[in-house]
């Protein structure tokens, strides 16, 4: 394949990484933005989403789309509920103190990971995509006969991969609408801006925290369910999303949702492209370097607002 078409395929892979990363990182970002909680266990909620999706689809016979649809709805709800329980019995008990919160979520990370290892096992397990038609993609050429469209061999994607990107866009738009146009969004933003005054004006901050922590985890799980037909479920699969989400949240400006999405696109696309042309490890190294530079030169993130 020529360089052009090759780059096109790599960008598509990058777009899928970006789409899933945007969902996962926005989950981490709202938890940090509203609750000021650095959730080190966020990647494990992602992993649980994939593992529960595998479990649900393996229970439901019939067309793969049936099991997948159930998983797409049920897995985020189950993971969100589990996160609400973790919030109530761990984070709430230690009063959301920053240092103890980090230690506690590291603890949660290992508990969830090891429990999955003991029950689900060390294998990677596939989930069948609900639909998966290969579609050839066109490329253009300037030949002797001028501009022409060609269908180079190997330049293709699947309907499912395109659907993942579309689904992520829709989910993010819905989330944005909820945050900016609804009463519950107003309550969440008021809590983010001034937790004490929110309480003084009748907002039950503990309930908001439970909701936000559950929602953050559910977003990670949702991203995982979307990607698991491409990637397979594995008990260690939360590590990369955690690292990349942290990178994205820092670059995007801590707690800013639009900044997080932009950064996810930037990091996801370059991660996809560099992984295809070089190695995934190089992609992670470069992303981590970028974070270091952002922290040195623009501590509020590339898209973050300067705090006074």
């Amino acid at each position: 394949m020529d360089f052009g078409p090759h780059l096109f395929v790599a960008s598509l892979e990058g777009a899928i990484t970006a789409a899933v990363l945007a969902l996962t990182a926005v989950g981490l970002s709202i938890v940090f933005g509203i609750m000021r909680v650095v959730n080190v266990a966020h990647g494990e909620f992602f992993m649980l989403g994939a593992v529960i999706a595998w479990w649900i689809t393996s229970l439901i016979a019939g067309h793969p789309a049936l099991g997948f649809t159930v998983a797409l709805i049920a897995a985020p709800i189950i993971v969100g509920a589990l996160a609400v329980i973790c919030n109530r019995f761990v984070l709430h008990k230690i009063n959301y103190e920053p240092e103890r919160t980090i230690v506690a979520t590291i603890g949660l990370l290992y508990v969830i990971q090891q429990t999955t290892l003991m029950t689900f096992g060390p294998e990677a397990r596939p989930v069948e995509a609900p639909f998966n038609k290969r579609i050839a993609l066109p490329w253009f050429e300037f030949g002797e006969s001028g501009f022409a469209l060609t269908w180079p061999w190997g330049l293709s994607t699947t309907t499912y991969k395109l659907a993942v990107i579309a689904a992520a866009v829709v989910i993010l738009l819905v989330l944005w609408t909820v945050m900016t146009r609804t009463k519950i969004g107003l309550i969440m933003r008021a809590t983010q801006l001034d937790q004490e005054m929110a309480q003084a004006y009748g907002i039950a901050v503990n309930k908001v925290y439970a909701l936000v922590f559950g929602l953050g985890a559910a977003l990670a799980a949702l991203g995982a369910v979307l990607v698991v037909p491409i990637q397979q479920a594995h008990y260690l699969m939360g590590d990369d999303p955690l690292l990349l989400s942290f990178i994205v949240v820092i670059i995007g400006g801590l707690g800013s949702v639009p900044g997080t999405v932009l950064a996810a696109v930037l990091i996801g696309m370059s991660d996809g492209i560099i992984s295809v042309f070089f190695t995934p490890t190089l992609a992670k190294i470069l992303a981590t370097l970028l974070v270091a530079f952002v922290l040195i030169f623009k501590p509020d993130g590339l898209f973050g607002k300067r705090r006074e």
Partner: protein
Amino acid sequence: MLRVNQIEVAYDRVQVLFGLSLSVERGEILCLLGRNGAGKTTTLKSIMGLLPLRGGSVSFDDKTISGLPAHKMAAKGIAYVPQGRRLFSELSVRQNIEIGLMASGAGHETREYALSLFPRLRERLKQRAETLSGGEQQMLAMARAICARPQVILLDEPTEGLQPSMTSMIREVIIEMKNNGVAVVLVEQHVDAILAVADRVTFVEHGVDAETVAVSVLKERPELVNAYLGV
């Protein structure tokens, strides 16, 4: 109607209030006066349930309300205008007012009433609160509290840093609330303002209520102010 009974409050290990008491009735303005750091803001926050009490109690219409979570106070009819305004900075004027309305479940009429008191806010409903001028921010902080339809309003230095015309406007609104039967607790540094609006004055010194007098007494004995403020 609101009674603060010998409250003791500390930040971590540093105790700030040592058995402070005060009371205020419907349609009455009680002023708190005291040096910087005497514990006035701490008193208001404690009433709002934002700080835990180590001792003492707060009651409202003879029912104990201390110990309730802070977010229940608004529904009990207590509204708070904090020192430094503390608006929801990135939200619009409309949204800040909306949050006040949510606290009381009040509707359109209350919102219109609040905006009629501060017509300048009506012109700026879409503006972000942090971009308002200092005076407008104070109006919004008052409007937000009024939308919570309080029976008791706690005002912490609402005229701090404002020019005289703005100060008198805020003062008129406070008097209107009093006339509507609201119990007002007002932290105020300016003695002339106190003499103009207060019914009674509680002097706060080192975290206790050193003395409470009717404002007529204060008029006769202006040296009291010097004694507690030490100007």
